[in-house]
């Protein structure tokens, strides 16, 4: 469907070129409809965008899943009928007030007015719309990307929303800007597994929501400790206004919510298409709309005019800790527990600027430890004491450097999808591998724009082709996530992993395709600059026809090292597992990834396994292309 849709703007340009540029003057609904029919106005991209219509002539379908969004009974599938009904309704008696189509469908009314030159329209009093538009008071828009958040699957790919800024929106003024967010409306009375099914299959309605941006700052920067990247857009005031008009039309309108494609990020693109006529942002997202790819789509359409960084609380704290001499690090926690230590001779002897930085860091750390916790009177009292000390040191507090690294912004990451081809040798058997990964990033890959220590893969498929050209399944990883967050004196996060899919295993003297789910939990530690060590306890459930009883649980450990050397990344890992039926597996893996450029890499891998009936060694070289 979507490739066809991509052609439509071209067709429409031809149509538009063939018709007169000057809108005819029409004075009533039937004259307006005659004029619209002459130009087949319902095929214009802007009208289809306003209806959220997808498809092709004869098979239109609106993403909006709500009769309140349509004036014609068949409006969801018939843009022409909806156009006719809208023109009729625009000329309805003004006494309808806020319920009048001119008040309900302000963006449609605006566009039709401009395009058809409607005259003699009734003048309903759109009080509610007027109030809303005065509240929003925006003339600019910003595309906002709260970064990857592995602790919530809904956010592991990041998220996008729009912010609507007034003219004066620098350095804090944007706190009161409106944020436009599309999310699912979940019925809390549904039971758990039902949620999952409904969420994936579009069973939940999604709606656009508008709320103050400061709440988003709190939600992401503080509560979820996520960095936020902001991409200011170059929409004009008029384009922003049309976006706001359309938003008004969408208030309370239900859309089916699909996790993979018709999600928050896809819906944001639809808004931008309404704002700027003639751009096509959505047609590239037939299978999935990964949030960062939608940011890149906006960049490709020349909508983005910069980027700004809003660090998470944890990011700011780490920055302060990095600036503080390590010898003072023990004092950070000690001051939080006992602010009176600041009067000790040792701390009073510090240079004032250093002491100021220590106080600030101690305060930020104490506050950080209280995020999400119930109010603790002791922590509150100590926080207040440190805050007063901070006030006293304000004049000598050193300026904090920029927390952002623009060269590491998420839009600069390697492409979200990966194609790969490899050559392998395993016990004198040579074979080719062909792989497709739908998303997103592995530990050993070029980490630019990603969270360090994060692996987020959904939908990895690999085939093998042996010397006799026989094609076989190598592996399918449905979900493959690893979160390695280093622990230190100040932060004590758990590291964890989850992997489920199909893979080759050996049992009973032969090879089997087994289904499994494998999870792990443990810790990781920063060992050297660019290096990370980790150790996880693992559990596994495997369905293997090679076992007498095919379904077997196993327990084990995995431990490894990850080290970045510029464009080279090394990963070494050892793993051991013991199954309930007594089977044991040992595995050693060595991976070396060489970044060729942003979207290409070479991957060298060696695998040794000790698995009944014998041990085996495999090694291979794989070329990886990201797009």
């Amino acid at each position, binding site marked *: 469907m979507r490739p066809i849709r991509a052609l439509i703007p071209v067709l429409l340009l031809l149509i538009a070129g063939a018709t007169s540029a000057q809108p005819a003057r029409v004075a009533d609904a039937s004259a307006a409809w005659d004029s619209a029919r002459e130009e087949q106005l319902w095929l214009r991209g802007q009208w289809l965008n306003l209806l959220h219509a997808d498809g092709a002539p004869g098979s239109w379908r609106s993403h909006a899943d709500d009769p309140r969004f349509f004036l014609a009974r068949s409006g969801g599938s018939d843009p022409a009928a909806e156009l006719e009904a809208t023109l009729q309704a625009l000329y309805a008696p003004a006494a309808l007030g806020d319920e009048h189509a001119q008040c309900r469908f302000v963006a449609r009314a605006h566009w039709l007015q401009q395009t058809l030159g409607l005259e003699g329209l009734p003048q309903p009093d759109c009080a509610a719309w007027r*109030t809303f538009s005065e*509240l*929003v*008071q925006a003339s600019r828009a910003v595309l906002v990307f709260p970064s990857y958040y592995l*602790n*919530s*699957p*809904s*956010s592991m790919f990041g998220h996008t929303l729009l912010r609507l800024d*007034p003219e*004066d929106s620098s*350095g*804090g003024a944007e*706190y*009161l800007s*409106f944020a436009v*967010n599309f*999310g*699912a*409306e*979940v019925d809390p009375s549904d039971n*758990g*597994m039902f*949620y*999952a*099914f409904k*969420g*994936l299959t579009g069973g939940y309605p999604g*709606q656009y*929501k*508008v*709320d*103050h941006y*400061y*709440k988003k700052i*709190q*939600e992401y920067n503080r*509560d*979820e400790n996520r960095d936020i990247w902001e991409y200011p857009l170059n929409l004009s005031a008029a384009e922003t206004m049309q976006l706001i008009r359309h938003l008004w039309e969408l208030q*309370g309108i239900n859309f089916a*919510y699909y996790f993979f494609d018709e*999600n*928050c990020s896809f819906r944001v693109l639809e808004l931008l298409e309404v704002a700027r006529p003639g751009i096509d942002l959505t047609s590239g997202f037939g299978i999935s709309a990964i949030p960062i790819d939608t940011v890149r789509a906006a960049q490709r359409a020349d909508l983005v005019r910069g980027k700004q960084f809003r660090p998470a609380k944890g990011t700011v704290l780490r920055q302060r800790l990095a600036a503080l001499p390590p010898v003072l690090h023990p004092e950070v926690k000690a001051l939080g527990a006992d602010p009176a230590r600041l009067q000790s001779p040792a701390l009073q002897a510090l240079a004032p600027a250093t002491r100021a930085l220590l106080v600030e860091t101690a*305060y930020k750390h104490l*506050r950080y430890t*209280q*995020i*999400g*916790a119930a*109010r*603790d009177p002791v*922590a*509150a009292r100590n926080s*207040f004491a440190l*805050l*007063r000390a*901070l*006030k006293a040191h*304000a004049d000598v*507090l050193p300026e904090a450097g920029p927390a952002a690294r623009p060269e590491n912004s998420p839009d600069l990451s390697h492409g979200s999808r990966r194609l790969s081809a490899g050559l392998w040798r395993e016990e004198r058997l040579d074979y080719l591998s062909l792989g497709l990964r739908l998303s997103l990033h592995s530990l050993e890959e070029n980490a630019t724009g990603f969270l360090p220590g994060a692996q987020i893969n959904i939908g990895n498929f690999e085939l093998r082709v042996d010397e006799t050209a026989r094609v076989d399944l190598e592996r399918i990883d449905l979900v493959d996530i690893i979160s390695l967050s280093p622990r230190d004196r100040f932060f004590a996060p758990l590291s964890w992993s989850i992997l489920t899919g199909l893979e080759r295993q050996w049992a009973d003297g032969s090879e089997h395709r087994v289904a499994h789910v494998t999870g792990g939990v443990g810790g990781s530690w920063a060992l050297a600059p660019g290096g990370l060590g980790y150790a996880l306890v693992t559990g596994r459930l495997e369905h293997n026809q090679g076992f007498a009883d095919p379904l077997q649980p196993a327990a084990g450990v995995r431990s490894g090292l990850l080290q970045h050397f510029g464009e080279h990344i090394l990963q070494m890992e050892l793993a051991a597992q013991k199954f309930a039926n007594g089977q044991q597996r040992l595995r050693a893996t060595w991976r070396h990834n060489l970044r060729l450029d942003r979207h290409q890499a070479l991957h060298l891998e060696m695998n040794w396994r000790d698995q009944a009936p014998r041990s085996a060694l495999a090694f291979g070289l794989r070329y990886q292309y990201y797009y």
Partner: protein
Amino acid sequence: MKKLLTGAVLLGASSMAVAVSPGGPNCGWGNMLFAGQSGIVYHFLALTTNGTSGNATFGMTSGTNGCSTDGTLTYGGKAMVQAMLDEFSEDVAVGEGDALTAVAVAIGVAEEDRPAFAQLTHDNFATLFPSESVTAEEVIASLEILMRSDARLSKYVVS
């Protein structure tokens, strides 16, 4: 919004950390789930919805976008001060910052007077934040009194 307020009113300067549910007021699904309810089921819930809790629609419930045109803090502006009291107090202590600017904007202080606003609040930190149990309402009341007696900023406070 109601939830935000009932939660936020409990905040003192130190509250900062808060008597509201983990994840904060109006927080998205992910955090609340993980803090309050555990289990794979809820992971799946978050996985499939990427949503927000359905308690905030179109800012209309607050009756305002928080930007004042007549001088005093509106309902929306007060809600922000309450919600951001932690950040605001730290900015006041340091004498600058986004939360401080945001409050100035919410009151309607023009750009050229914002440095004066920052200076006034910083100089009177102890008045605004006398203890860790001060409430947001008290901070806002003190702020109005301070501004009223400031030659440059009194014009932003209607009597």
